[in-house]
């Protein structure tokens, strides 16, 4: 399927509704994150785009261009809405994220690389789970998650030589990409959240968006 075919399947109107759904979902996620887990975060209005799955990592890299190196967390989710979430932020932000949680158990020591990695994964897990979970809830779906993992630095540095995922690396397939910028209040940490769904979710997504609009 080429870009125009994908867009004929998933119209601009659908994309606009999806942006609206994401906006509501991320707003709820943001409020609940502050209330429930004491993470104060601002999420910008999401943007929906279509692109070839093969170009995904290069696009993310280009879109998150910064002088600093990037850390990226990948987490797959599946339900009727199935795909991958990517959370990207500058490596220098890692220390700031660790101080996000005022934990009583620091048996590993605050400087442990293992603690740093696990804290990043925990932040990623909560953030991705909150955003994807709220979207799924609005669209009347339940999703499950695989464990989050850090994308190796070598993959981020050489996106053109790396297939991003066995599910998304068919060069002819199109992906729906949803991007939002997040800001941790008080921490001066900014990053990007990408939700990528393959073609297999498009048909369901179209129907779910139609049902969503019909409620109003």
């Amino acid at each position, binding site marked *: 399927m080429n870009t125009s075919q994908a867009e004929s399947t998933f119209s601009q109107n659908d994309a606009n509704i999806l942006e609206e759904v994401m906006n509501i979902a991320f707003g709820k996620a943001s409020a609940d994150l502050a209330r429930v887990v004491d993470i104060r975060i601002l999420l910008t209005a999401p943007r929906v785009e279509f692109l070839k799955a093969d170009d995904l990592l290069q696009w993310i890299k280009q879109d998150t261009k910064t002088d600093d190196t990037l850390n990226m967390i990948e987490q797959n989710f599946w339900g009727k809405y199935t795909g991958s979430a990517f959370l990207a932020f500058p490596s220098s932000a890692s220390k700031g994220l660790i101080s996000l*949680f*005022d934990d009583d158990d620091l048996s590993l020591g605050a400087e*442990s*690389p293992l603690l740093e990695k*696990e804290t990043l994964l*925990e932040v990623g897990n909560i953030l991705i789970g909150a955003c994807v979970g709220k979207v799924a809830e609005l669209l*009347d779906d*339940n999703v499950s998650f695989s*464990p989050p993992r850090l994308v190796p630095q070598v993959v981020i540095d050489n996106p053109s030589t790396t297939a991003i995922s066995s599910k998304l690396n068919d060069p002819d397939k199109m992906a729906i990409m949803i991007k939002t910028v997040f800001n941790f209040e008080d921490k001066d940490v900014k990053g990007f959240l990408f939700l990528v769904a393959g073609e297999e979710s498009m048909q369901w997504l179209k129907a779910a968006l139609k049902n969503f609009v019909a409620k109003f």
Partner: protein
Amino acid sequence: MILNQILDSIDLGLVILDRDFRVRYWNRWMAVHSGIPFKEIKGATIFDFYPHFRNKKFLRNFRAVVTFGNHYFFPQKLYGYIFPFKPESNFVSEINYMQQSCTMGPLRNEKKEIEYVYISVNDVTEAYIYETNLASALLTLLEKYVDKEEIPADEAQSILDELLPTSSKEVLAKHGKPPKDKDTHTIIGDQLVDILSEIAGTNR
């Protein structure tokens, strides 16, 4: 009926908690390994039997599960275990507790509201022992080459950092060996070199 048989037969621990942390289900695997029968723990809070769960990290992620439908993962590398059970094998002397990889996730009722939270417990002790032995052997081997100045120390460190989930210091600490236990390390290193040479010879 069949589902109950499955849940009680699988080689996996399964606990179901309600939103008030009360135990609603405790499968046979959990009963066998904990020594606590289901009828004894049923209705009690998990903190009554395992007070260490009352910590900020667990409570935060429990709340994320019941609020967002998140899944939370307790990796063995970070936690070691969350339920202090004896290792299954009678011949494991290296560790005191079964190493576990656990997952916590939501369970919804007919109205799709999250009513319960499940925790699954996987015994990964064997894999952990194998990985730790391998890491220790690798460390020994690298130390040997560093001592002979065949590999620069910083290069050896970066190999370790790349390959091992924890720093070399943490591997040694977990394995109970002092970092400079040269005699033991030399013996293991020599044996490993011999084995590797043998394998290389066979494959030629």
